[in-house]
């Protein structure tokens, strides 16, 4: 077996071990590389910046544990910006695990401590509502005929923020972060097409290409592109977090991947060439 043939078949265990190392080293010793922000996340940031103080935002946590590492940091940065701007937040979850993500995010954002926000007056959490698009249409249509309590069972009559909120007309902006294609499209259908609401979306990077046509046609005013978008937003809002740490790890792991792709291709072509010469 030639050297080239051996290089076409580096054992799986070797590749995996190197990847693990490429993740651990930068986590221990961060590089702090500069971040170039993309258009799509800048558009997200600017849309929120332009909202007048006191505007009400409907925010959907459309992901669970599987999406948290990618979307959680972006969610935290987004909330920081919204609380800083004194916006009012009505939060809901179209994902089954969304209610479990909410405390994880709020632990980091600490709206009471950092921004003096009060639950019930400045933000409320409605909890999980089943049915994806049906839930969206329900909340935007006639909120009070659907929802009677918040996620902890407090009647909405005791939540001053919800007093004047009946449906789509009362929200200045709708924003969502999700791992589900149906949710990402669903909000475009329900919030943009149905009510012509300004809409911000965020999804896993692997979904970005599929969702981007909505951004191009102005149906989404901003698009958060997974962990990259999250790092951008952390940078723009001045609240560095896990996403920026992650971008150092990305530098190591993806460079390694590129090296392996190069090895794979060179050895593939060299093997093919030697075989052709032999025959």
């Amino acid at each position, binding site marked *: 077996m030639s050297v080239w043939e051996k290089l076409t078949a580096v054992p799986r265990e070797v590749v995996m071990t190197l990847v693990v190392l490429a993740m651990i080293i930068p986590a221990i010793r961060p590089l702090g590389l500069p971040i170039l922000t993309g258009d799509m996340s800048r558009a997200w940031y600017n849309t929120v910046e332009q909202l007048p103080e006191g505007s009400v935002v409907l925010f959907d946590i459309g992901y669970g544990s599987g999406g948290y*590492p990618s979307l959680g940091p972006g969610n935290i940065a987004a909330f920081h910006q919204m609380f800083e701007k004194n916006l009012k937040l009505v939060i809901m979850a179209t994902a089954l695990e969304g209610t479990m993500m909410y405390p994880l995010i709020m632990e980091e954002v600490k709206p009471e401590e950092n921004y003096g926000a009060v639950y019930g007056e400045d933000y409320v959490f409605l909890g999980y509502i*089943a049915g994806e698009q049906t839930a969206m249409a329900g909340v935007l249509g006639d909120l009070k005929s*659907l929802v009677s309590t918040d996620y902890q069972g407090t009647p909405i009559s005791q939540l001053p923020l919800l007093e004047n909120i009946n449906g789509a007309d009362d929200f200045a902006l709708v924003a969502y972060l999700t791992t589900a294609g149906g949710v990402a*499209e669903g909000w475009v259908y329900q919030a943009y097409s149905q009510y012509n609401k300004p809409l911000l979306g965020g999804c896993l990077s692997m979904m970005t290409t599929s969702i981007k046509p909505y951004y191009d*046609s102005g149906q989404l005013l901003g698009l958060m592109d997974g962990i990259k978008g999250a790092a951008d937003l952390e940078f723009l809002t001045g609240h560095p977090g896990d996403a920026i740490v992650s971008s150092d790890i990305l530098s190591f792991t993806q460079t390694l991947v590129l090296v392996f792709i190069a090895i794979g291709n060179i050895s593939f072509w060299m093997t093919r060439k030697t075989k052709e010469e032999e025959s």
Partner: protein
Amino acid sequence: MVSTDAQIWIAAFFTIAATSYAFRDNVVFKFAENTFIGVAAGHAIVMGIKNIRDYGWNHLAQGEMIYIVVFILGILLYARFHDKYYWLYRYPIAFLVGNGVGISIRAAIHSDFVKQIAQTTSPLIAADAFGTINNIITFVGVITALSHFIFTREDIHTGTLGWIPRVGRWMMLLAFGASFGNTIMSRFGMYQGRIIFLLRDWLQIV
């Protein structure tokens, strides 16, 4: 110092167990996978019942008796497991399908068809040459990709016009390459969260 919190230890165990599949299929992974399926279903039941209480039972308790119909429909969903009366589950499913299909297609034709075509009809000439070239590439991409998916007209795919759908296929492959590159970032971006957890919360070395 390593964490002394039992919760962190259990979480670390399951993190490593779920990762182990990448190296090779093994019994620890199988244990983790079965646990995952079990807890996911358990969580779904808890959230389902909470939903029924919040959005159904609360209405009934306030005297909206019409909600009895919903509860009957909901219970009928479980008729599918009965050998003789399984067809009863078709009533609630028919309701859900009608609602689901109606609510999505009514807007899909607007968002995915009319709006996307409207975007394609914007002027090709931009303020600068670079912008014009970009507009033309985008336009060619839309038209050729669409033509690739026309199946009932043989003439578009053969003969002198045959290059149009072929260009469409190439444009799509270029776009899929971008998607592939982003997927790699997506997966790593997700796993990094676990590495940070293991190093920071469990081993406490960062």
